């Protein structure tokens, strides 16, 4: 994985010093809260319902075990013993003290981490496929391109006060595991007819109150124009994105209002101009970055045999592991969704245990997924049982990946000052209702996503089953959506009808899943059945 050189290290160290200065100016009263807010936000420091919250960037979701260990230590030292992994592949801490933040950031910097641009109206942490570099189906590892974009977007002086936040995802396989088309810019690395690698640009996707699927605006950007093209996309947005209404300020609205063709025309015009400016890093820089993402020293000639005589282990292997490109290895996902647990939360001890296991059994590497789980990308099959045993003892071996128990949920009204309703208790009740392994297996792949407000941090639009918490005259109310999906066949969910209270929504989910079991045809997932028969019969089953 990527290792900082002296320049990268100097950049994060300088940022720590700068923020230390900003914090001291705030504490002395030289900066008012209005002046300080945009500065702290660009360093990932929010004010939430109970306290300051700090969001730490995990670039493209990749972590070393040393970094993961520090994340655990920070949870103990500066927070209340736990952290929350987010749908942006980041981690956030809920109880941070302003005066301690500079020291915390210095500790992060000591392991090449930071909280730069994890909030604010700027280019945010760049997300990617959590199986990058390990997946059997990728055409190339997307992370070097994400790293190139990370450096370009960090402290880009023209794009730090955009109309609104800006999220970029980079993938390199047909199976889209990063919800690429629901980003402000989604980039898919592709191979053209000549066999060259390039970037396909999708612009103007997003969730929030106006969900949109990004249209493709260019099918191939050569690698030596990647930064220039990105800069053109951003400049058009910075100049013409709406600033009169924050709810219409995302690039999806600009692309929608201009129309895809007109936005594309403006980008191409700006691109043609920017090609005259020497702003593109040389390909040698990309090559330098790529050397950091070389395969680890896999052993050759390993057997793919796995002893599955322990039924619990067999269940977990069946659910939580994926094919690896290297024979004898698997990709293993640690579910942070124990039955009745808080999705995405992990204790300091659990974080350190995962760090140690990655060090011992996964070439020192971990990934954070947008579904709020942790991945060991390169586990030797011969070690898998040992890993699973260790996970099991730490309540980290729940076998429910991509099932109804693997719920994405935002922090909701329990933590978030923007939320209208609590998300976590609903996730807990659903996870308990569908807690048995048999029931989850029977339902198969079912992505359930809960947001506590219209901002959609819980990706409810993209859930096969989505739940949106709303405030109805001071009482929490939950709307049900069906038919959303991220990935290659991205679709947006549709609201079924009137909302429910907290217990009612759990019952409604059960009615929907029971109806699916009744109606499904061979091999159909919940989503497939919904797409085949449509909303009306589901609505009848839920409300009838």
């Amino acid at each position, binding site marked *: 994985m990527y290792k900082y050189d002296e320049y990268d290290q100097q950049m994060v160290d300088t940022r720590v010093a700068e923020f230390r200065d900003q914090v001291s100016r705030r504490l002395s009263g030289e900066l008012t*809260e209005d002046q300080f807010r945009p500065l702290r936000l660009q360093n990932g420091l929010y*004010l939430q319902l*109970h306290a300051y919250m700090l969001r730490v960037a995990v670039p493209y979701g990749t972590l070393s075990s040393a970094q993961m260990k520090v994340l655990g230590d920070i949870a103990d030292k500066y927070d209340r013993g736990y952290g929350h992994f987010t749908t942006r592949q980041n981690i956030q801490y809920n*109880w941070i003290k302003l005066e301690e933040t500079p020291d915390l950031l210095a500790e992060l910097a000591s392991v090449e981490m930071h909280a730069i641009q994890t909030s604010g109206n700027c280019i945010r942490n760049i997300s990617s496929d959590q199986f990058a570099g390990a997946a059997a189906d990728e055409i190339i590892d997307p992370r070097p391109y994400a790293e190139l974009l990370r450096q370009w977007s960090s402290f880009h002086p023209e794009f730090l006060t955009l109309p609104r936040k800006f999220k970029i995802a980079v993938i390199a396989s047909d199976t889209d595991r990063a919800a690429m088309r629901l980003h402000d810019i989604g980039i898919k690395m592709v191979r053209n007819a000549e066999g060259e690698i390039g970037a396909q640009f999708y612009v103007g996707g997003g969730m929030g109150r106006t969900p949109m699927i990004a249209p493709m605006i260019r099918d191939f950007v050569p690698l030596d124009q990647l930064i220039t093209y990105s800069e053109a996309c951003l400049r058009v947005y910075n100049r013409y994105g709406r600033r009169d209404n924050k709810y219409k300020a995302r690039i999806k609205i600009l692309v929608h209002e201009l129309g895809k063709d007109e936005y594309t025309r403006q980008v191409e015009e700006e691109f043609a101009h920017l090609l005259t400016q020497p702003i593109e890093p040389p390909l040698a820089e990309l090559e330098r970055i790529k050397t950091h993402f070389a395969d680890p020293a896999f052993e050759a000639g390993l057997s793919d045999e796995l002893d599955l005589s322990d039924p619990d282990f067999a269940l977990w292997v069946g659910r939580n592991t994926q094919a690896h490109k290297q024979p004898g290895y698997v990709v293993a996902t640690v579910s942070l969704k124990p039955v009745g647990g808080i999705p995405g939360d992990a204790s300091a001890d659990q974080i350190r245990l995962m760090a140690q296991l990655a060090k011992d059994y996964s070439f020192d590497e971990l990934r954070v997924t947008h579904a709020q789980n942790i991945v060991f990308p390169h586990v030797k099959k011969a070690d898998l049982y040992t890993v699973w045993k260790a996970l099991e003892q730490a309540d980290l071996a729940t076998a429910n990946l991509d099932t109804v128990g693997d719920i994405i949920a935002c922090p909701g009204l*329990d933590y978030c000052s923007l939320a209208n309703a609590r998300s976590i208790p609903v996730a807990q009740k659903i996870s308990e209702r569908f807690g048995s392994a048999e029931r989850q297996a029977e339902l198969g792949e079912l992505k359930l996503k809960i947001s506590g407000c219209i901002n959609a941090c819980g990706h409810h639009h993209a859930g096969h089953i989505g739940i949106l918490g709303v405030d109805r005259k*001071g009482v929490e109310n939950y709307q049900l959506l069906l038919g959303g999906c991220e990935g290659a066949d991205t679709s947006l969910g549709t609201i079924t009808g009137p909302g429910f209270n907290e217990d009612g929504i759990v019952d409604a989910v059960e009615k929907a899943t029971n109806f699916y079991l009744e109606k499904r045809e061979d091999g159909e997932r919940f989503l497939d059945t919904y797409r085949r028969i449509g909303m009306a019969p589901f609505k009848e089953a839920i409300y009838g």
Partner: protein
Amino acid sequence: MKILTGNDLKSGAVTWWTGKGWSLDVNDAADIGDDGAAIIAREEGAQNVFAAYVVDGEKTAGAVRPAHIKERIRALGPTVRPDLTLKPNDPDAIARVV
């Protein structure tokens, strides 16, 4: 009644205006009537608090209850982590909030 809440600048902790100063316990919150804007201006200016705002509440039997669930959760702590709330040993605390 009108009550006033804000955050402590250094720690970020949620605080409530008592009439004389700031308390972590919502039950200490004073009825500020129409003085909210003036108190906010003075207290934020003196850096005693930031992000302050006025909410509706009611007082019964010595307990102050914010009108909206958001401020009730704000006053207690996350309902999904009773151990981290202000009343970790009160089994009914969460039921009173929601």
